[in-house]
């Protein structure tokens, strides 16, 4: 159970992150707000409550790892890392600009706190597996988290990696699926249905938890449950709303990869700040 003040803290942080996402993409003039807003609460729960990390030592060997397999949600990750203190919040304004440490998709060599370079969908779970295997080889107790998009599950490599994670009993690995139901060309069930996601992972030998991805209580309970699971990896299928928190973006597929204008951004910020 989360204490009331913890819950309020996480909710306020999520609001702040969502505001950053809107401001960043508006200044950049491009980017992916929809899928950044849908996974914000998961990232906030991980970085501001769960993960064992040290922003002053981003390459600490014993840190928990996070792989943003759906790399286009980079604005959410960058905002979280900045708020966490990995780099100055001012940097967020440089998103996607020439010479910026904040590339369009996460670059581990440019941005402190980014554990894996991603952006090409389907590759993050494999990298997370490698990190989890390394942890087991070295007898370290760090945990590895990876966040996948639901559309991303259409990539074959995800299932190669899913098979391997169960085969090697990677119980130090927890995957999230940001199940917002939309991809660039439309609803995932229209484009190429990856459903039923829970049953697919179950068939691949994973422990599966289904939650509301915007409910901190549920997110944190699921993470705790995953930590206790022995002998198999856990996937948390987080049911989310694409564009969450910005009324005109919610469940609107067009906001997958389009930045708001300054005017639209003001409207969004007003809604977010309530």
């Amino acid at each position, binding site marked *: 159970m989360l204490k009331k003040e913890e819950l309020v803290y996480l909710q306020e942080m999520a609001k702040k992150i969502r505001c950053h996402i809107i401001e960043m993409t508006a200044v950049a003039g491009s980017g992916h707000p929809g899928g950044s807003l849908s996974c914000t609460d998961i990232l906030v729960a991980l970085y501001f409550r769960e993960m064992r990390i040290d922003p002053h030592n981003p390459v600490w060997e014993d840190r928990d790892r996070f792989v943003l397999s759906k790399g286009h949600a980079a604005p959410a990750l960058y905002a979280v890392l900045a708020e966490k203190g990995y780099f100055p919040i001012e940097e967020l304004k440089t998103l996607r600009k020439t010479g910026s440490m904040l590339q369009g998709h996460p670059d581990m060599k440019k941005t402190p706190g980014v554990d894996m*370079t991603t952006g090409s969908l389907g*590759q993050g779970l*494999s990298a997370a597996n*490698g990190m989890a*295997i390394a942890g087991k080889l070295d007898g370290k107790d760090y945990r590895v988290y990876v966040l996948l998009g639901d559309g991303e599950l259409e990539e074959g490599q995800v299932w*190669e*990696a899913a098979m*391997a994670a169960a085969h090697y009993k990677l119980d130090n690995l927890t995957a999230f699926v940001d199940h917002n139901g939309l991809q660039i060309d439309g609803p995932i069930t229209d484009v190429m249905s990856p459903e039923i996601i829970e049953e697919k992972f179950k068939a691949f030998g994973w422990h599966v938890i289904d939650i509301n991805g915007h409910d901190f209580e549920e997110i944190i309970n699921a993470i705790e449950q995953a930590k206790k699971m022995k002998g198999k990896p856990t996937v948390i299928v987080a049911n989310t709303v694409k564009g969450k928190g910005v009324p005109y973006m919610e469940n609107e597929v067009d906001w997958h990869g389009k930045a708001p204008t300054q005017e639209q951004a003001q409207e969004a910020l007003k809604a977010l700040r309530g």
Partner: protein
Amino acid sequence: MAKIATREAYGEALAELGEEMKDIVVLDADLSKSTKTSVFAKKFPERFFNLGIAEQNLMGTAAGLATCGKIPFASTFAVFACGRAFEQIRNSICYPNLNVKIAATHAGITVGEDGATHQSIEDMALMRSLPNMTVISPVDAVETKKAVRAAAMLKGPVYLRLGRHPVETIFDDNYEFEVGKGVVLRDGKDVALIATGTMVGESLRAAEVLAKEGIDAMVVNIHTIKPIDEEAILKAAECGAVITAEEHSIIGGLGSAVAEVLIEKKPVLIKRIGIRDVFGMSGKPEELMKAYGITAEDIVNAAKSLLSID
């Protein structure tokens, strides 16, 4: 000299290195008996990971291991490593400059009977085009062992090109190997034969034939296709005529790399010996080399035609 396949030497080298370097881990995609990573697997089962027939995940997993300080060697056939998993190598390994060694066997047409689907003739072209990647194509068992060690010591992605078919051992243990440094195996002044991998042996044989006909051929082993040894190539080009020889497509491999250097810095006459923009086929390795025009005899003929002797 006994004939040994470079893949055999790779397996032995890995098992030896595994003893010294505890961070080495080895990954394979259900071909460990063919790639010879099985030798390492037997000795260090806890550091060997079979990923099954899933090359994309093979490369991605290797990348993840490398982020945690491991030195992964990922092995499968060259076609599947470079072709099937090209984009994983590009985005998950080379772009973040991770310390992954891709040791791919069954390169070239001397794979033989398995035919075109399994004969990689474009792997060097693909790997050479990637920033951060080092590309090494060893000649024989001795050079392979040295190259495997050098690759393990080098920080960053390395592509090692290995063969299935047993090849003559040319070097002895005193042979000095340095990544990026070409080796002059025979001095000459009329024509330079610049070769890599299996074609180094053919070039040495060709030089002997040419010598009997009064043509003094230089032979240079370019084992590192990238970074290419410009100095060695420019020196060889002083002959005024250059033949490149590789068991690979003439598009994008050694021939292209040498031509790129020479066209900018010292234009000379060049002929490229290699697979001429066609796929391979089933057959005995020696027969295929003849069929595709990549034997010592073909090098001799190319040299003569370049020097306008015929």
